[in-house]
Structure formats: structure tokens, C-alpha cells
């Protein structure tokens, strides 16, 4: 009996110990994922959330950064921004610049990708074209700005050819004329950005099973039908993803605009990015600049929402 009691006590102790251990282990197990993401979250908070919160705070203050006695003014900075006609002009031009860039990036990128994927083009030619087409991607925005400022100078190569071919009979001031500057700038951005689409879509094209095309051929489909009923639907997830990303990135383009036109002539190429930069670093109106930056942030977040929704739906499919 005494033995039994002793055994029972021993058993009970073991169970308790095991129970504690397993409970402790399960708590550790639950905390483990959080520990894994903690360094990334710390960095994210420090480098992203904190600056964003600061900019949001500045946008609600008067004389932020510059005045030690800056105070809370609510949405006054936003009201001031929204009452500035240059802001609305910048917004309209940013949308034009972005939409045109995204559409033409896609068209040119897709055309070149199809060309590089086509078996009708000789492999040697394809390799040469592949190098040539990717070239714009290798240049930084500063180099692109310098190159195109020279090419589109009134005394530059483009005008030289156009005059020689009798297409124009005067020197067009591409970046200097309010009538042409925004189009010239958009053209340069299209030139600089299409390789991203080309490379992504080429990868997508190479991933489409050949059997689809063989089956279509058996059914008597022609090239155009192949493109619209096989190629395009297969590329749709890639197109949607990069178009949304491109939209977000292009809306925030700054160096190219700044280095080519600086937002001029007059305000013909003013974008939200240059408008914000000027507020901050030439007028030292950091509160207004923060309010403008928050507007860009909100616009980008709207697009990011669609991007994430699209990514989720792709993942679920």
C-alpha cells in the first residue's frame, strides 16, 4: 500500500512536470513565429512606419521642422494645398504622364517580347536585339536625362533628321516649349521603362505550354486568334501585376523630371513629386510638403490596395 502510494505520488509528480513542460513548449511554439519576424518588424517600424508617422504629424502642424514652436493646425495645410491651382495642374499632368507611360510601356514591352520569343526571327538577330532592347534599363535616370536633353536639344540629332527629311522646317524646342515638353518627357520615360515589361513578359511567354498552340493549330486558329485567346490570357496575371507596380512607381518619378525640365517651362511638366520637392527644399515649407507627400501616399495606397487584392486572388486561384 505504502508502495502504491509512493508510486502514485511519483507518477503524479511526473505528470505535473510533463504537463508544465508541454504547456511551456506550446507557449514557446506560439511565440516562435513572432520572434522570427521581430527583427524585420523592428526594421520596418524604424525605417518605414516611424518616418511615415512623422510626415503625417508634420502635415498637421504649422512650420514643422523649422520652427521650434510649431503647433497643431489640423487639416489647414491640406486645404492650402488643395486651393493651389498648380497642385491640381501637377496632379493632372502626373496622371497623364503615368497613364501614357504605363500604356506605352506595355505595348512596346509586349511587342519586343513577342519579337524576341518568335521563332521566325533568326537566333543571332534575336540575341543582338535582346542586348539592344535592354539597354535603356542599364542607364540611371541622370544619364537618361543627359542623353535625351542632348538628343532633343533644338540643335540636336532629332531636329537635324526631321529637318533633313523635310518633316519640320524649324527647330522644335522639345523640352523648352510648353506645348511639347510634357509629351517629350513622357516619351523619354516610356523609352526608359519598357525593358521591365519586356523581360517580365518574355519570361511569361516562355512559360506558356507549346501544346496550347499546337491544339489551336489543329483547331484551325490563326496567329491573331492565338494571340488573343492563348497568349494574352496566359500573360494577364503578369501584365496586371507589373502594370499596377509601374503605375505606382511612375506616379512618384522625380529624378528624370527634375533633371530634364525641373517642372518647367512655366509649369508645363510640374508633377506631384517636383511640386512637393519645391515646397520642401526651395520654399522650406515642410508642413505643406508633408501634406502634399501624404496625398501622393494616399494615391499610391489606393493602387497598392488593388495590387494586393489582385495578388491574393491570383494566389487563391
Amino acid at each position, binding site marked *: 500500500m505504502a508502495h502504491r502510494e509512493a508510486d502514485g505520488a511519483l507518477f503524479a509528480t511526473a505528470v505535473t512536470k510533463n504537463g508544465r513542460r508541454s504547456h511551456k513548449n506550446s507557449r514557446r511554439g506560439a511565440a516562435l513565429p513572432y520572434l522570427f519576424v521581430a527583427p524585420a518588424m523592428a526594421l520596418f517600424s524604424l525605417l518605414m512606419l516611424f518616418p511615415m508617422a512623422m510626415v503625417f504629424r508634420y502635415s498637421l502642424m504649422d512650420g514643422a521642422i523649422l520652427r521650434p514652436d510649431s503647433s497643431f493646425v489640423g487639416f489647414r495645410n491640406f486645404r492650402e494645398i488643395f486651393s493651389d491651382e498648380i497642385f491640381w495642374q501637377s496632379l493632372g499632368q502626373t496622371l497623364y504622364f503615368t497613364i501614357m507611360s504605363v500604356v506605352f510601356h506595355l505595348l512596346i514591352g509586349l511587342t519586343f517580347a513577342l519579337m524576341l520569343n518568335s521563332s521566325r526571327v533568326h537566333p543571332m538577330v534575336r540575341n543582338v536585339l535582346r542586348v539592344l532592347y535592354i539597354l535603356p534599363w542599364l542607364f540611371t535616370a541622370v544619364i537618361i536625362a543627359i542623353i535625351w536633353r542632348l538628343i532633343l*536639344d533644338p*540643335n540636336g540629332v532629332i531636329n537635324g533628321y526631321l529637318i533633313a527629311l523635310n518633316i519640320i522646317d524649324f527647330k522644335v*524646342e522639345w523640352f523648352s516649349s510648353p506645348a511639347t515638353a510634357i509629351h517629350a518627357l513622357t516619351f523619354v520615360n516610356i523609352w526608359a521603362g519598357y525593358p521591365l515589361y519586356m523581360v517580365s513578359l518574355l519570361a511569361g511567354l516562355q512559360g506558356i505550354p507549346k501544346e496550347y498552340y499546337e491544339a489551336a493549330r489543329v483547331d484551325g486558329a490563326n496567329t491573331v486568334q492565338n494571340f488573343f485567346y492563348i497568349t494574352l490570357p496566359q500573360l494577364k496575371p503578369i501584365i496586371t501585376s507589373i502594370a499596377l507596380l509601374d503605375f505606382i512607381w511612375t506616379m512618384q518619378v522625380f529624378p528624370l523630371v527634375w*533633371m530634364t*525640365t*525641373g517642372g518647367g517651362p512655366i509649369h508645363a511638366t510640374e508633377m506631384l513629386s517636383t511640386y512637393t520637392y519645391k515646397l520642401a527644399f*526651395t520654399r*522650406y515649407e515642410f508642413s505643406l510638403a508633408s501634406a502634399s507627400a501624404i496625398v501622393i501616399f494616399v494615391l499610391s495606397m489606393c493602387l497598392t490596395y488593388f495590387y494586393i487584392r489582385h495578388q491574393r486572388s491570383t494566389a487563391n486561384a
Partner: protein
Amino acid sequence: MRFAKSLTLLKSAALSIAIGLSSAQADTTLEFIQWWEPELPSGALRQIMDDFEAQNPGIKVNLVSGPYSATRDQIVVGAASGTLSDVVGLDGAWVNDLAKQGAIAAMDDLMAGADFDKSQVAAIISLNGNSYMFPVASFVYPVFVNLDLLKNAGIDQMPSSRTEFVEAARKLTDSDNNQYGWVLPLSLQAPNGIQNDVMSWVWASGKSMMKDGMPDLTNANVVGTLEYIQSMYDEGLISPGSFAKKEQDKVEEFVNGRVAMMVDSLAHINLIRERNSDLNFGITALPAMDGYDGRRGLPYASWGIGIAENSEHKEEAFKLVAYLMSTEVNAKLVSIANAFPGNVNATPDFVAADELFGTAFEIFQTGYLANEFVGLPVAEELMRMLGVEVQQMLEGNQSAAEAAAKAQAKWAEEF
């Protein structure tokens, strides 16, 4: 034995630390932020600092150097956070904003305390009666003329008045051969063309764009200057593409012989020679209004210097400022930089060695430094505001008087 050795080691380490600490306490280290070092020959500014340290035992100078724009950004951030370097390289265009912020110190008491003779400084930049900046080196902007093109056009003397300048520009313009009389950079990215190439015409005739410390753009002299520029633009005497042109484009066109005359910094003489060693060019003072025979204002850009308000070593910082402004050191520094001195008694040695610099020095001595943007609030933005209105005027959307009035209204909001 081992214990004794360890004890000796510990003692010597403690002694070294103590010596190190005491010497560190004796030394004052000044931080000097500027963009000059990268623009000078390698090691030149450091050498001057070493000489200063040798003459002022106990003061060390730590140079914080970077390109102009990066330095400006660093100064803006430093001013906002109260961590500005002790001695600050300044552009006149920043002084108003930094002084209003309380980021740079008034140097009047420091000058008095050090018995500094302020009459030797070429142009002290003051605000509300307080002195905030000394120009260490000045780069003046005369008119550069392509002498070969001038000769080919049958012009035998440099234009001295506005009428002579227009007549010369007319003869020098041959648009079929891409040759133009003048070049006018009006890019809004770097709007200093408004200061150097537009307003300089007003100052050259001894006139002003200010009145009682407030903008006065609607006065007849400013409006007349804008009309003068518009007439040259309408006549096609100015190289095309002005609205996107920057200073470097202007120099490039002059170097290539596309434009015969330009207003430019003396600092570019060597650059122009390097780019085109065959270019035969001369310099002359900016033409004045017809009949004007007074002293001519010379537009300039300068390497200015000031002291941070947050500096804990203002007296030592002023010693460095005074050293750089002293006759001998100032002459040495500007000789290396090919600039004109901030000390009126200093004479740079390149003046005797180079004919062009000699001519420039004569222009410098017969005129006076004039840059009314120095010390104004948000000076660069003021240039941009006027730049937009000048572009509207040249586009034919408004008259010179309307451009001046609109710019005046925008400027008034910033004062």
C-alpha cells in the same frame, strides 16, 4: 610575478588614458562644413587648415566636405536639428532663412571681441543690422565674347552699352548656321539664370530691384530690362531652347561657337580653355543702359562663411573665420580657387600671370559686387517665381510690365 606584470600594464594603460583625456580636453575641435574642398585642388584646403592649427595650438579643424547640393541639404537638416557644424560655408541665398531660423550666429560681438577690422571685408551680409556672413571668395560674372566671331562680323570693339550689345548680337546671329548673338538659360530646375543673366542687366546700370528692403520689380529699370530682353528674344538673337537651358548648357554653346556672347562666371575660364583650347575669347563688363557712366554692379556668386548659433566654441570658430579673411591667407585661398578676394586688401597672384584674369580684376576694381538676391528669404524660389513670369512673357502670354507685377505680388508674400 605575473600579478606584478599585470599591475604594471594596468598602470601604464591608466596613465595613457589619463594623458589622452587631458590632451583631448585641452584641444577644441571645430567642425567646418563647406563645399569648397572638392572644388579646390586635392589637399589645398586641408593645408590651409593645418597652417591654422599650427598657429592656434589647441584648436583642431575637422573638414566636412561634399558637393554643393549635398552640403546645402546637410546644412538645412543640421539647422533644423540644432546640430550644425561650428563653422559653416554659406551661399548668400541661404543666409536669410538660416538667420531667421536662428541657426547661424550674428558675428558682431565676436568681431568686437577679437578687434576684427570689418572694413577689410568686401561685403558683409547683414540682416536687421546683424552681420551673418563674410564672402571669403567671389566669382564675378562678366560678359564672355568670342573674339573670332566678333572680328568676322566686322565688330572691332567690345559692346559697352545695351544698344551696342543688341547691334553686335544682330550682326553675330546667323540662325541658318546655328550661330546666335546671346544665350539666356532660364531652366526652372536651376533658376540662377534669373540672377546672373537677367537681373545682372539691372545691376550693371547701377539700378536695383529692391526698395527699402522690399521687392520693387515694377520699377521702370526692371521693366525696361525685361522689355530689352524680350526684344532680343523676339528678334531671334537668343539661342533657342532657353526655357530648359542651364548654366552648363550655356557654357557648352559658347565653347562650341554657337553663341558669341554670354554672361558667365570667371570660374569657368579654365574650363572653357580645357574644352576648346583654340577658342579665342575675351571678357568685358556687362553693358549698361545707354548714357550710364557710373560704377557698374557686378553679379557674383560667393563662398561665404558664418558661425553656427549652436556652436559651443564660437570664439575659436571666429578665429578660423578671421584667419580665412586675413589678407595673406585670403589671397592664397582665392589664388588657388581663381576667385576674387573677400578681403579688399588681398591681391590674388593669378591676376598678374594671366591677361584675362588681369582684365577681370580691372573690371572688379572699377565696379562693385552686386547681387541683391543675397540675403533675401527663399532666394532660389524668388528666382523661380520670376523665371516663370519671364517665361510667360517670352511666350507672348503677357507684357514685361505684367510679368514684373505678377512676380512682385508673388515675392511680396514671401517677405
